């Protein structure tokens, strides 16, 4: 490793797909040739101007990028401290940041001649984004979704079906995101010839964590430019929620080598991060292990069996976290905290009331931490929170949690 790389937080992963000791390629032999091929094709596309030109065109005309960086005045006033900006990725086509990455992977799949796309989904946002882009390009799309999530995210299930995707409910385990990912891997190992696995977060075997990060980094790149235009300088702190961690990595990565920028990831604390393990906070309540192709912090028992975790948000309900986050945690570059279901619900309501933005439950976690942090900071402190998804999909869950009959 060169001196320059040692001085950067942005040079990973290494040639083995490792971020420090995290990441790697822990997959069965059947999949190894496929992910090596994917890595080679991605490395080529990454340096191909025509690939990025196609991405930029679609980001602008199909997704609606750049998303605004919005000064949330009433929220700032209410919390009485830091000047709060929201990165409005909930305004993207399909209502979340997920499509940033899906476009990249589908363009790559097309270049590789793959005709069938599979995906896992938790809250359904990644599934909807994948179904959307597959519809646009006329590709067959199969989405694996835990049966529990199918039940609690009905609007997104119907959206995927309208878009022509086949939604496969997965009943194994507790029937949530982890189990959907297992099933997608089983499908991929069976249909190796024509199928491309479009992973929705910065997890999975190398090259997925790096590739998904590179596609999501558009979020942070735009924030740099937009903040320069708005305030003439870098932001002072960044806050984003973390399940697998793709929206957070997208926002954080372009700022990792700016030491003046404080970076905070917010995990789902469920009913509280304690020995009951009724949460989904892998970093604050887990330890390193190997699952879904990479080494990372995991919720697990003493025997190394994976625990299911809990969160009110189906998108954060995952027992692992992207390996690069695990590394940034151990390096101390990014702070990771957790907030509870209850705190996230309070933040959900605050966003609706003060800004007229119905947030998804995922970024409501980020906002819940902003509610604690912002009042402790001076008025000239520039805080950016990633509003990574809109909350239409969550209104039923929220109504139930608030005891409201719909």
């Amino acid at each position, binding site marked *: 490793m060169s001196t320059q790389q040692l001085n950067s937080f942005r040079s990973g992963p290494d040639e083995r797909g490792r971020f420090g000791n995290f990441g790697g390629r*822990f997959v069965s032999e*059947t999949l190894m040739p496929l992910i090596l091929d994917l890595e080679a094709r991605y490395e080529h596309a990454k340096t191909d101007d025509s690939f990025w030109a196609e991405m930029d065109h679609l980001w602008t005309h199909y997704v609606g990028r750049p998303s605004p960086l919005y000064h949330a005045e009433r929220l700032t006033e209410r919390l009485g401290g830091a000047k709060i900006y929201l990165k409005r990725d909930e305004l993207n086509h399909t209502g979340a940041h997920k499509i940033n990455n899906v476009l990249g992977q589908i363009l790559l799949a097309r270049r590789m001649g793959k005709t069938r796309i599979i995906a896992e989904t938790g809250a359904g946002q990644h599934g909807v984004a994948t179904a959307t882009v597959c519809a646009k390009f006329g590709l067959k799309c199969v989405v694996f979704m835990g049966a529990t999530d199918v039940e609690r995210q009905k609007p997104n299930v119907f959206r995927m079906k309208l878009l022509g995707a086949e939604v496969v409910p997965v009943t194994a385990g507790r029937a949530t995101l982890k189990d959907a990912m297992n099933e997608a891997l089983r499908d991929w190992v069976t249909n190796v010839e024509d199928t491309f696995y479009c992973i929705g977060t910065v997890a999975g075997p190398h090259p997925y964590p790096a590739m998904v990060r590179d596609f999501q980094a558009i979020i942070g790149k735009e924030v740099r430019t937009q903040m320069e235009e708005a305030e003439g300088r870098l932001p002072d702190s960044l806050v984003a929620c973390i399940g697998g961690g793709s929206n957070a990595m997208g926002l954080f990565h372009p700022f990792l080598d700016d030491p003046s920028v404080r970076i905070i990831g917010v995990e789902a604390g469920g009913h509280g991060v304690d020995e009951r393990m009724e949460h989904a906070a892998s970093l604050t309540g887990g330890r390193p292990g190997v699952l*879904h192709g990479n080494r990372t912090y995991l919720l697990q028992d003493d025997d190394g069996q994976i625990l299911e975790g809990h969160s009110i948000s189906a998108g954060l309900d995952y027992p692992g976290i992207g390996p690069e986050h695990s590394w940034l945690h151990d390096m101390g570059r990014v702070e990771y905290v957790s907030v509870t279901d209850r705190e996230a619900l309070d933040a959900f309501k605050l966003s609706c009331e003060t800004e007229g933005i119905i947030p998804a439950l995922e970024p409501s976690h980020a906002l819940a931490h902003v509610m604690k942090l912002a009042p402790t900071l001076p008025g000239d402190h520039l805080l950016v929170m990633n509003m990574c998804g809109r909350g239409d999909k969550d209104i039923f869950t929220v109504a139930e949690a608030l005891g409201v009959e719909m």
Partner: protein
Amino acid sequence: MSRIAARFAKLKQDGRKAFVAYVMAGDPDYDTSLEVVRGLPAAGVDVIELGLPFTDPMADGPAIQLAAGRALEAGMTLRRTLDLVRAFRQQDDSTPIVLMGYYNPIYSMGVETFLAEAKGAGIDGLIIVDLPPEEDDELCLPAARAGLNFIRLATPTTDDRRLPRVLQNSSGFVYYVSITGITGAAAANAARVGPEVARIKAATDLPVCVGFGIRSPEAAQQLAGVADGAVVGSAIVQELAAGKSPAQVLDFVRALAEGAHRG
């Protein structure tokens, strides 16, 4: 000579194909599982593949997933799995045992601790599905230093360019996965598998056994016929799942073994 090498040498001398049987440790509970495992050698099993239960068996089909769930539900752990092997070894010191599973329970225990315990308990080899050659320094190389065989899966996607990498650091035998897919799925096809096994045998002196998709004595005979042995897992596990007694399960195993031995 390791138990695995000794067993394959004996089979070669006798002009017989190997029958490898997979059962999940602790399925449906520790005592029943031990009774089945103890009966396998007398039922004609040459090598025992003992499944290590894991919550997320990504390369396995429903039969093995459910078996792992039953075992975990009944309190099975990696430590109890090692206990089961120790109990088996009190009566049988020659039948090789290969532990098959996923890396995380081993990583969680600590690789060096695990290797010392496994060797001491009487385990002869490891098949760890999510450790490809690219991750050899995790467990494969330490296992070799500890005197345990590391048995690798070769698959239909392992082309000639990749095969040397898969064979390097492999020991014991090579497990050829007859299909692209998960355990217990599509039926294996001897006519297609034969040339693949020949391709692997041209590149290694290790015995090659074929598994995935073998469900009957006839299939065991056909697949063993084009290789050095046949592996059956899901079909045996399903007998247990159907509530068959250990004696009934062992009768089923005996028929499979006779099939493989005719191959």
